């Protein structure tokens, strides 16, 4: 469905994308995970034909995407990273303005707008100006505005930034629904939780390079351990940090410590050590490792600083 072939994009001061190649299948929910400045938005802008690449080619549904190819854009919807709406006009008028750019007939457009407003629970508030909307409402409208022409491919560039958890869940559910209905979705984020929850496949991008790609479970196999051990921060554990460090790398997280077992370490040995030191099992949680851990493993840095 989407072919990204050896794309390089240079800005005067930086190479934002360096020989990026990706293949995204039809109806896939594909994630692009990377820290700020990794080049995610740049790739989105290339996919929609807002920018031209310096090297390489992009095909969407077998049509080449460039700045001058207008037709292929009817197959793609872009949800920009910023809230790309007019603040001073109503939700309805916003959709009218953007819908009219696709040459949708007036009557059809009216129906399409109503449907899309309904699907993001904004129909009742269609006459209010966007300025008065909450962050979550704006984000939902930002998505609705990209779907009026019923595109096959939906590009979502960090569509949940600045949104409360409840709205965020609503957006996730909606995007999953759209994917179920057959839309191919590319979703960029720097939250690994989002990527894990939504994406059937994803690529990790850093400094303009794809450092690995695959399904979440495929990616996690790249780690030298299969579990991480979460240790609560409390009196009992506070004095035993040196003990934990014998079993692997200890990372000081906000709410707890995360222990990444060195290869060859057996969990039974770890639990024996806990018993010997009178540490309650309640302070310990064994988990599947996260993409965060993978990113750290691959780059030596955290996703978010």
């Amino acid at each position, binding site marked *: 469905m989407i072919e990204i072939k050896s794309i390089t994009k240079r800005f005067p001061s930086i190479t934002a994308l360096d020989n990026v190649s990706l293949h995204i299948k039809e109806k896939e929910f594909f994630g692009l995970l990377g820290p700020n400045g990794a080049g995610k938005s740049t790739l989105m802008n290339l996919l*929609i034909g807002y920018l031209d690449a310096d090297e390489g080619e992009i095909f969407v549904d077998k049509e080449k995407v460039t*700045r001058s190819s*207008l037709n292929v*854009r009817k197959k*793609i*919807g872009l949800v920009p990273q910023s*809230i*790309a709406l007019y603040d001073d006009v109503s939700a309805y008028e916003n959709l009218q303005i953007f819908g009219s750019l*696709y040459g949708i007939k007036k009557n059809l457009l009216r129906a399409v707008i109503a449907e899309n407003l309904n699907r993001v629970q904004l129909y009742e508030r269609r006459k209010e100006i966007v300025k008065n909307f909450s962050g979550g409402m704006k984000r939902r409208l930002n998505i609705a505005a990209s779907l009026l022409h019923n595109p096959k491919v939906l590009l979502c560039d960090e569509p949940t930034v600045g949104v409360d958890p409840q709205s965020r869940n609503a957006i996730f559910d909606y995007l999953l629904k759209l994917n179920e209905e057959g839309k191919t979705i590319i979703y960029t984020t720097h939250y690994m939780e989002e990527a894990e929850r939504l994406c059937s496949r994803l690529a990790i991008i850093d400094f303009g390079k794809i450092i690995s790609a695959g399904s979440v479970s495929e990616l996690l196999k790249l780690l030298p351990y299969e579990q991480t051990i979460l240790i609560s921060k409390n009196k009992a554990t506070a004095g035993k940090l040196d003990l934990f460090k014998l079993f692997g790398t200890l990372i000081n997280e906000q709410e707890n410590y995360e222990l990444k077992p060195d290869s060859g370490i057996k969990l039974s040995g770890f639990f024996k050590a806990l018993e010997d030191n009178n540490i309650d099992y309640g302070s310990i949680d064994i988990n599947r490792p996260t993409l965060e851990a993978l990113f750290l493993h691959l780059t030596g840095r955290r996703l978010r600083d």
Partner: protein
Amino acid sequence: MKTVLSLIKRDYILYWHDKPAVSLTFLVPIVLIYLFGSIFGGSNNTPTGIKLAFINNSDSKIAKKLESVLDTTKAFRLVKNYTDDKGNTVAFDTNSVKDYVKKGNAIAALVLPKDAFTDTSTSFRIKFYYDPKNEMEMQVVEGLLQQTIMSQMPNVFMASMQHKAETYLGMDKGMSFNRKIASLVSEYYGIDTAKILKWTTYNFSDSAMSDTSKSKANFFSDLLQLDKEQVVGKEINNPNATRSVGGWAMMFLLFALTGSSTSLFDDNKSGVILRILSAPVSRVHILWSKYLYNISLGCIQLAVLFLAGSVFFGVDIFSNVFNLILIIIAAAAASTAFGMLLASISKTAAQANGLGTFLILTMSAVGGAWFPTFILPPFVQVFSKFTIVYWSMEGFLDVLWRGANTAEILPYVGILLGIAAVVNVFSVWRFKKGNLF
């Protein structure tokens, strides 16, 4: 084309929701046009009811006549007495009248002295007492006073002339000179020689001067009447108001179109341009829509403001409406080019608006939007010709004042469209190079 139309429609929807922009385009300039048009060219531009303290110490008939003329003209309101400490109404004397002015109760005191005009006076004497802080008002008062005397009592001058002749030529020669003049006037104007010779003994009423054939009776009263007549084109009701209308309209046209062009920056920042370009829309579409929208908005704005001028001041916009429309389109096109140039050379909206405000004010001053360019120093006038405002104003005034035909305004239209073309080529080149969108 459909895409461009959709984009233009978008601009109008957004514009309509932007109430400050709407009022800056129409309401504010209309108010300014009304105010400045009233000051500089309003239908009633002579002041009325200027308060003057007044004493007439002269017995001469001519002084009496002046007093009654001043009493009846609308320009002045004469105050002849004041209320003293005890609440009595007292007629002015020289001291009290000075005091009255000093206290700021009147702009000046006008005193006709005892010898204002005697049998031998060679001129009419008037004395003013005034406070220097009223210098400006005094000039108006003097002007009005002279105008009143000239138009209402021209015979003062005939009488002065006769007295002068008698004083300087000697009684005999002078009288003979006066007799000859009188008989000439009498012969041609049919006024009794005796009356002409004996000004001072006559009652200086209009009937005395016009007791014969009416058509000739105006010999005296026309003597000093200022009749203004336009030497160019058709009668126009209100030339100065026309300049105000055109000038303010041009200035606010430039402001409106600069504002509209710099909205490209906001669209870029909010990501709306990205959204628009992610639809089947090209950058060329956006530029075309912006140009056409600006030009159409500019034409509407100018048309509305001229219409306001016509309602307020009777500026005649309809008898030469086709040529007015031509020059309006050319002015709107050139101003659009100006706004787009600013957007293309600036890095931020604030920069564009700052530079724009500076350039617009300069161009308006230098280009003749506020006052005619001839009052500027010659070297500044050279710069006038490099401004859009200048050529637009010349065009407007030629159409509205001189009733210029299409051939006559073609140079202005040509220059404005030429400026627009050159500037547009440059700004499109800049847009292509820059990353505004």
